[in-house]
């Protein structure tokens, strides 16, 4: 019978209104909505959603607590496996993970697991009651305070380790702070509080320390007494296309554009860091970062085009983000690939020269590869071009650490539990896989935490 209740829709800010502000798009469920939605769960004996979750949250169990109205109980169940539920409830690609494998999804709509997680996390934000094992005095260093580092540090701290996270930027959070915009993940209301929870477990976070420059992995282990190190330094280097005109004024990496806006809060008048969007912006790329950059530029007052070489069906961004972007008025120029950026006499962008594409044979990834249509070049007038083509790991650590191998894509080489080629040094998240998702990084951080625990007890 529970089956017959349709998925409870989540309330959102009106697209026309939200296109002009940085407030959160989604309002989330209230208690009544959450309990109704929770009642749809079938509590499968072999819950496929749990296996599909990279950190294996006991989903049916926490949902059962929500059904009973025991939100604290639900939060305690989630906390066993996730240190950032308010973040994950917002940014996880649930449609391909937990919700993607929900039995209800076969014939209808899956349970809104993500929205339920978010509700539980928001209701209990700042009131976690996790207890830690007695301190064992063993020091472990974590490099990077993004999702991988925070997840790894949380588990280790719970088991009694003396954990210090080293962060290169002035604020903790990694990509959650500099990359994901306020309208998807509020910084002060959500992120800051979840990071505070990690601190309350006893984790120290030292900002303004660049591992590989300020100190090295060697000096942490040899001079500062850290017995193991986890590297979760992410994939921070922007890619460019290598086409003519990329160094013109008005061409930015999505990393620069988003860091100015998110970390440096350039969208706020009272912060000093400048940002340039102009009247018209072309964002090149089709992933979540492209959507974030486009929707940010829109909120700064620009007309925004997404320029992508395949079709809508191949867009790597989450469906929800694409849908939100379309609702807000982002223009999608599909099967379009830039070949050159044209500048004016002062060295500023004036147009993006593109070529039309068509889909050919499927490539290695199984997606049909785009092929240029000869002679179809055309120009899009624009003031700004933002390149959102993906990122790769920063070589700063691997270059300054003896015995730490990287593969040809610049990613750290690590085995399935995160052990690198150097004893005592573990790694996980984007630094190992290349750019992926928040939750996969968290999963890798937790796996490595277990491996570090075993390594230190050998």
């Amino acid at each position: 019978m529970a089956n017959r209740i349709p998925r409870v829709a989540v309330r959102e800010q009106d697209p026309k209104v939200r296109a002009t502000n940085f407030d959160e798009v989604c309002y989330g469920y209230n208690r009544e909505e959450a309990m109704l939605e929770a009642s749809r769960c079938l509590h499968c004996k072999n819950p496929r959603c749990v296996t599909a979750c990279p950190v294996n949250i006991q989903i049916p169990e926490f949902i059962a607590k929500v059904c009973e109205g025991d939100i604290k109980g639900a939060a305690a169940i989630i906390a066993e496996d996730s240190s950032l539920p308010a973040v994950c409830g917002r940014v996880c690609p649930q449609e391909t993970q937990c919700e993607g494998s929900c039995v209800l999804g076969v014939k209808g709509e899956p349970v809104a697991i993500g929205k339920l997680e978010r509700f539980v996390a928001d209701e209990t934000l700042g009131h976690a009651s996790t207890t830690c094992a007695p301190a064992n005095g063993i020091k472990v260093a974590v490099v990077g305070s993004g999702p991988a580092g925070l997840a790894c540090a949380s588990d280790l701290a719970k088991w009694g380790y003396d954990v210090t996270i080293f962060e290169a930027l002035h604020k903790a959070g990694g990509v959650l702070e500099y990359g994901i915009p306020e309208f998807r993940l509020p910084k002060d209301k959500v992120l800051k509080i979840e990071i505070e929870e990690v601190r309350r477990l006893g984790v120290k976070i030292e900002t303004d320390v660049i591992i590989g420059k300020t100190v090295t992995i060697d000096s942490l282990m040899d001079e500062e007494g850290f017995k193991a190190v986890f590297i979760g330094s992410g994939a921070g280097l922007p890619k460019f296309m290598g086409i003519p005109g990329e160094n013109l004024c008005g061409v930015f990496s999505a990393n620069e554009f988003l860091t100015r806006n998110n970390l440096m809060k350039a969208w706020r008048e009272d912060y000093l860091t400048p940002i340039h969007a102009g009247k018209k912006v072309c964002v090149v790329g089709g992933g979540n970062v492209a959507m974030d950059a486009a929707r940010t530029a829109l909120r700064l007052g620009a007309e925004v085009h997404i320029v992508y070489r395949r079709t809508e069906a191949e867009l790597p961004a989450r469906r929800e983000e694409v849908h939100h972007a379309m609702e807000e008025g982002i223009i999608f120029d599909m099967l379009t690939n830039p070949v050159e950026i044209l500048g004016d006499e002062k060295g500023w962008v004036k147009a993006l020269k593109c070529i039309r594409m068509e889909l050919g044979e499927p490539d290695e990834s199984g997606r049909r590869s785009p092929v240029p249509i000869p002679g179809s070049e055309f120009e899009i007038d624009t003031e700004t071009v933002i390149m959102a083509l993906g990122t790769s790991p920063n070589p700063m650590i691997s270059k300054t650490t003896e015995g730490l191998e990287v593969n040809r894509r610049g990613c750290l080489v690590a085995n399935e539990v995160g052990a690198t080629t150097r004893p005592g040094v573990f790694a996980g998240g984007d630094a190992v896989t290349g750019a992926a998702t928040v939750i996969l990084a968290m999963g890798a951080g937790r796996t490595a935490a277990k491996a570090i625990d075993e390594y230190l007890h050998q």
Partner: protein
Amino acid sequence: MFEILSKEMLTPIICRMKVHAPRLAAAAQPGEFLIVRADEKGERIPLTISDFDREKGTVTIVTQKIGASTADIIAYEQGECFADVVGPLGQPSEFVKMPEEELKKQRYILIAGGLGTAPVYPQAKWLKEHGVPVDVIIGAKTKDLLIYVDEMKDVCDNLFVCTDDGSFGFKGMGTNMLEHVVSEGHSYTQAVIIGPMIMMKFTTLTCKKLGIPAVVSLNTLMVDGTGMCGACRVSVGGKTRFACVEGPEFDGYEVDFDEAMRRQGQYKAEEAEVNEHHVCKIGRGK
């Protein structure tokens, strides 16, 4: 928090501060730079490291008031703290890693323009300490804008000072001074040029004319300083390089200065707006 241990105004708009940053001081090398964020709402401002003391855990920075953010930095007083000081960033100067054999064969001329004199100081000091012949040219528009004249005397073999208006030392620009010094019989195997982009462009041309290889230190725009944003991209020998992690020093002969100057001015319109409305908030209610 990073405490300011001492502060002195070298000119009405140039300020020298010694800041407590022990991890940074322990790692700093000549040629590298750091980033200061004065307070929560401030920009991340890249500044050169003009000296460091590993034992005392201090770094020295020299800041010139250019816009709102640099005005905020120099408004800080001794005993107050900057929110963030991070580094060292970039690559150390080439000579730091040069084999001793090769280093001994070198004769350096360091050419400083204006504020660029501050980062030239640790380079001269390092070379002098390692017994490498080193001369220095300091150039400024006028006498009041000259800095580090006395300090520099102690760390180089010959110091040449020039001002555009002739109010102190040789009358002329660094380029004229260099040609003059060479015409008097001094010869050099390597020049290092640090100053405003336009000064580095023309001094590089003079070096080329005189056949002296020239290294320049590029003060590009940047946000994080760790290779993440790419705001610092410069064309060197036709290739795009990131000044923050691959620089800031590059072969001057290969740098596209015109592009670098245009890119440096990318946020001029936005900055002008800020400067117009910005009320220096440092001194916070005092």
